[in-house]
């Protein structure tokens, strides 16, 4: 049985500047490869304290320890984006982040997008426009799109394309995804906005 090391944890999650700033949570000594240490994770607003070994990635911890299987496991090498989650509010690849580096930092996964029973406007738009087919890319794309809309509430097509450039979709051909992000953005200003004629009928006139 692995020994567990007790560590001081902060009571409240603090929003930090970026992925690099976590001196405050630094562990004083080396963590042995076969030892597990307590990790305090703030996922979708809930606090979890779990014991993990240094080699486990955030993706593995979310899926295997917390049962949050919405975040998908794809290439494991940074190339497909399906494992995208928000860490400190910015999109990162959970397959290439060590769990121990996420100690005491807020994580948002696709499970955290809905507000109770009400889907996120992006989720509504994706469903309505058929922007998900097999759906494997969708959790990562929704997280990346959420970060985009928070930084830029009215992105043009190029900005959407750029924000989602790290997310592979093998089914949709992307057009419906771009249109769904546009519709969700529009509905923030006009809650009853309808999809554009081009989206519905494939042409503008």
């Amino acid at each position, binding site marked *: 049985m692995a020994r567990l090391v007790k560590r001081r944890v902060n009571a409240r999650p603090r929003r930090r500047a970026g992925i690099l700033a*976590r*001196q405050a949570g*630094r562990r004083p000594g080396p*963590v042995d490869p076969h030892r597990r240490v307590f990790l305090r994770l703030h996922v979708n607003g809930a606090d979890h304290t779990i014991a993990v070994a*240094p080699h486990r*990635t955030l993706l593995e911890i979310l899926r295997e320890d917390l049962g949050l299987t919405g975040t998908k496991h794809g290439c494991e090498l940074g190339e497909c984006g399906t494992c995208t989650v928000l860490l400190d509010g910015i999109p990162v690849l959970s397959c*290439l982040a060590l769990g121990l580096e996420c100690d005491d930092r807020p994580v948002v996964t696709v499970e955290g997008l809905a507000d109770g029973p009400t889907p996120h406007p992006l989720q509504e738009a994706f469903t309505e426009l058929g922007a998900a087919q097999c759906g494997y890319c969708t959790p990562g794309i929704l997280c990346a799109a959420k970060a985009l809309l928070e930084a830029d509430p009215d992105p043009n097509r190029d900005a959407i394309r750029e924000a989602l450039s790290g997310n592979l979709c093998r089914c949709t051909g992307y057009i419906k995804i771009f249109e769904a992000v546009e519709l969700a953005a529009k509905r923030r200003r006009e809650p009853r906005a309808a999809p554009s004629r081009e989206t519905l009928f494939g042409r503008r006139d």
Partner: protein
Amino acid sequence: MRRFAFIEPPDLAAATEALARGAGKAAILAGGLDLLGEMKDRIIEPAAVVNLKTVRGLDAIRFEPDGSLRIGALATLASVAAHPRLGREYPAVAQAAQSVGSVEIRNVGTVGGNLCQRPRCWYYRSPLHKCLKKGGDVCFTTVGQSRYHAILGGGPSYIVHPSDLAPALIACDARITVVGPDGTKDLPLEQFYVLPSVRLDHETILKPGEIVTEVSLPASASADGGTRSRFLKFREKDSFDFALVSVAVALRLQGNSCSAARVVLGGVAPTPWRSKEAESAIVDRSIGPRSAAKAAAAALADASPMSHNEYKIPLARTLITRALLETADQGTGLAPS
């Protein structure tokens, strides 16, 4: 991924000490995008991983009063790409940072990690191939697929250096600072990289225990200091990809006449490839389609393509021509469509 000990040093001294204690079996973790990929593919299996991100103050981007710029090794590519003054003064560097990977890669990837990243050659990355760079006897590109490999400076290994940032920084005359067990070194970034004919196990001069702490750019290479710079990259997949060929140019112009030039290629050689041939072909000339094409031809005069990568020669020539013309506001060199 194999298990490893995880070390979070409070400062640089502790980091170098932990690395020295690891005696070559300890690896530096910055953003981890390249390192964790290598560990998952079992290309390297370090016994300990030293997390540099717990060392404070290595992520600053700072202009000095004299107009020079310092970029900490842990500055993210996203912060380099988004820095307004950096983008104005050293456009090639900002353009190169913006061209790396995807949003998620730039949010996490660091400048130091980008400069020290390992080759993307598919034989090097394949757990099934014990290639020259991994202590084997063959560079498999000489008998296998060489589409993405070197046309300049190759032998005995034909990898290309994958960094986009390195050519741009070298064009802007960057220096790099390395801290290690023997103290601090400060050298031109160009000299940081070594060809496989000199060293096979790594692409840089780094020794175990040495850490890149920052790069610095002189004011003379900035727009304010009278230099114009530009970075162009051609990739196979447009959403995000490594460069098939990239080029960074930095020019000092008097009117349209070029008084000094630096031309550095990426994706064509085992190191970022500075072309003094192209530089001397353009200096003291006025920049136009003919002189730019001549400089581009000079850069590739010594190229020796492998079985599957001859296409890189016209690609590199075109990119150099375009970069020179665009930097001098002489159009793109492309036929109007």
